[in-house]
């Protein structure tokens, strides 16, 4: 009555090979099922993995989708430089749509000048989707990032307003993905849903992927504010009375400057980052995303409003 235990040396995929194979399958399903997809590329580590996966999925052909970046105007310059260079190296089309354009159009209105622009990206994204008629957007979100994401489908349906309805998701069975949508609706496809932060770093190491420098330990002027390390930049100057210190830090996630905090670290190689990730005691978003700390349901709320 007992099932026999596993025999080694059988031709099974390693966990990274399995995750890679699943992601390639999902990318090809998007290409096969959707008529006009786009891949969201920010220059961050998760979307850098997506680009490698797209190469594995579609070379020697071109990608069957352009790259799309929603630029808040508050990104680290080295990330933007990296984004443009990477797209050029791959010979793929990069579309950049800027939140500042939405502000000029009046579709994004900030409550005050230094309100975080992060959540307003949804508006610019929806405008870009409409402008280009995209029926699917491929993103690098992972289920281990956040509680609301743990329940999101790999092919996640958004209505005409870009809204995610967590209680009314399409059942997703086997590897039979349903990426169908009517005009105006949109599918968000997440090929690395099943990856963890550690998987991402291990994949980056295995594939020898290049990353923007701010992922590695470097000296940076920062202030300590409410338990977080806040980088001091033109956009995020120190407040009166705060002491600016130089700290050895690295970024675990890269996004809008106003809501992405670095962690103290001396990991200046991928190997050291993996060692640190394997033994860290704080979750990726917990450590570094000032926007998710607002409340336990902050991400769920943003996603319902059309966020990635």
């Amino acid at each position, binding site marked *: 009555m007992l099932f026999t235990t596993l025999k080694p040396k059988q031709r099974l995929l390693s*966990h990274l090979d399995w995750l890679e194979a699943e992601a*390639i*399958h999902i990318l090809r399903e998007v290409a096969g099922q959707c008529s006009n997809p786009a891949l969201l590329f920010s220059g961050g580590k998760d979307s850098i993995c997506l680009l490698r996966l797209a190469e594995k999925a579609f070379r020697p052909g071109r990608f069957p989708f352009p790259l799309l970046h929603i630029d808040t105007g508050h990104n680290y310059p080295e990330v933007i430089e990296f984004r443009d260079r990477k797209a050029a190296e791959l010979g793929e089309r990069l579309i950049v749509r800027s939140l500042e354009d939405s502000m000029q159009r009046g579709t994004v209105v900030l409550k005050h000048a230094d309100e975080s622009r992060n959540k307003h990206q949804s508006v610019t994204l929806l405008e870009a989707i409409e402008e280009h008629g995209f029926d699917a957007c491929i993103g690098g979100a992972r289920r*281990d990032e956040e509680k609301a994401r743990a329940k999101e489908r790999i092919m996640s349906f958004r209505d005409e307003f870009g809204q995610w309805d967590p209680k009314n998701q399409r059942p997703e069975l086997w590897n*039979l993905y349903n990426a169908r949508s009517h005009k105006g609706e949109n599918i968000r496809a997440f090929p690395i849903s099943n990856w963890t932060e550690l998987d991402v770093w291990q994949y980056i190491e295995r594939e020898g992927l290049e990353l923007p420098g701010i992922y590695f330990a470097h000296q940076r002027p920062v202030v300590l504010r409410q338990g977080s390390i806040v980088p001091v930049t033109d956009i995020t100057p120190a407040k009166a009375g705060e002491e600016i210190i130089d700290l050895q830090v690295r970024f675990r996630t890269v996004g809008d400057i106003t809501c992405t905090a670095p962690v103290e670290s001396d990991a200046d190689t991928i190997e050291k980052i993996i060692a640190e990730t394997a033994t860290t005691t704080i979750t990726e978003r917990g450590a570094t995303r000032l926007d998710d700390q607002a409340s336990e349901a902050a991400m769920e709320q943003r996603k319902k409003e059309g966020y990635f």
Partner: protein
Amino acid sequence: MTHFIEDHGLLRLLTCGSVDDGKSTLIGRLLFDSKSILADTLHAIEKTSQKRGMQDVDLSLLTDGLQAEREQGITIDVAYRYFSTGTRKFIIADAPGHEQYTRNMVTAASTANLAIILVDARKGVLTQTRRHSHLAHLVGIPHLLVAVNKMDLVDYSQQRFEEIKRAYLDFAEQLGIRDVRFIPLSALKGDMVVERGDRLGWYQGPTLMNILETAPGVEGRLTQPFRFPVQYVCRPQDSSNPELHDYRGFMGRVESGAIAVGDAVTILPSGLGSTVKAIELGGEALHEAVTEQSVTLLLADEIDISRGDMIVKSSELPTQTKRLDATVCWLAETPLDRARTYLIRHTTRDTRAKVAEIAWRVDVNSLEKQAVNQLAMNDIARVAFKLAQPLLTDPYAHNRGTGAFIVIDESTNNTVGAGMIAATGA
């Protein structure tokens, strides 16, 4: 020092049971004792536990995802959890146990290779246990593990454990479940989950974590016939690179079996034959491709192949059919409408379909078969479909990849049904 989890790959498992069985606590315990919970997550659930006036940290809070669920204190949708040990990565599909959520359990079970079925040691085998076991078996999960939980509440009694085991085996036999193991544990106290503890000395078997680390993955599918549904055809036609002028790569994922360069293949539905000239992954040439691997196949002959076609070994052909007899789980709130035409998606192929017959519906609690005229959400029934286009199928019991399909309502594009193709004559 990095630790790669190379040897035992990845295992997808399903946990069945309700909050009352301690399912969420068990998952929390696996994550907690394998050190997959990080300090800030733990801190958040400590705060919530205190707010609710609990003395200990409620590990079940780790798996409560959505706002609505936290408010109602129940799990309403499948959630996926990740942890890894030194030798293996695990994906847990956490399915709610309530009766009305049969569809969620079927969804969660569809990708699992092992199911943990939780039994409360005080209550023993219940209707719910039978329902979960039946569904897990129906969806073809190869390995069942019955975890007799809350042993701390029955004084860690071996006698009680053996009683439950006997009762379970009695009905498992009726269902035809053969591959099943039993383990006594206390998720709350942590006995026999990751650590053995010292209160279950009479149990000589491995801990739950040991079982998970060594349980078989998808080995069984390696020896099945080769099935390669074509997802996408790569024709670069890059004028700057004449070598690519005639390149035709057939892209897909190996659903089962394996293929090597030089193997004779047949392309379906056309029935044309060729041989495998090359196997590629991201520009790298491979000698062979195995189950679950995503690759590109190049063939020796120029054949017109498109998405929806299937490449198989010439010696192992699937069934080509315009009629499906299948066990169907209805997933949508709108009942199945016999007058309507639906879309069936099977591998990478779609076809329109109409219901020819509903043979019976099975009561998931009593296992009795009843005659019905329509299907409502959570119903499980034997349904025959007439198809507009032929599909290339194997019985689900032999091959999950080519035996499964989903039913789509074209007016909403919603996935409304899940089907498992019956063996011919079954």
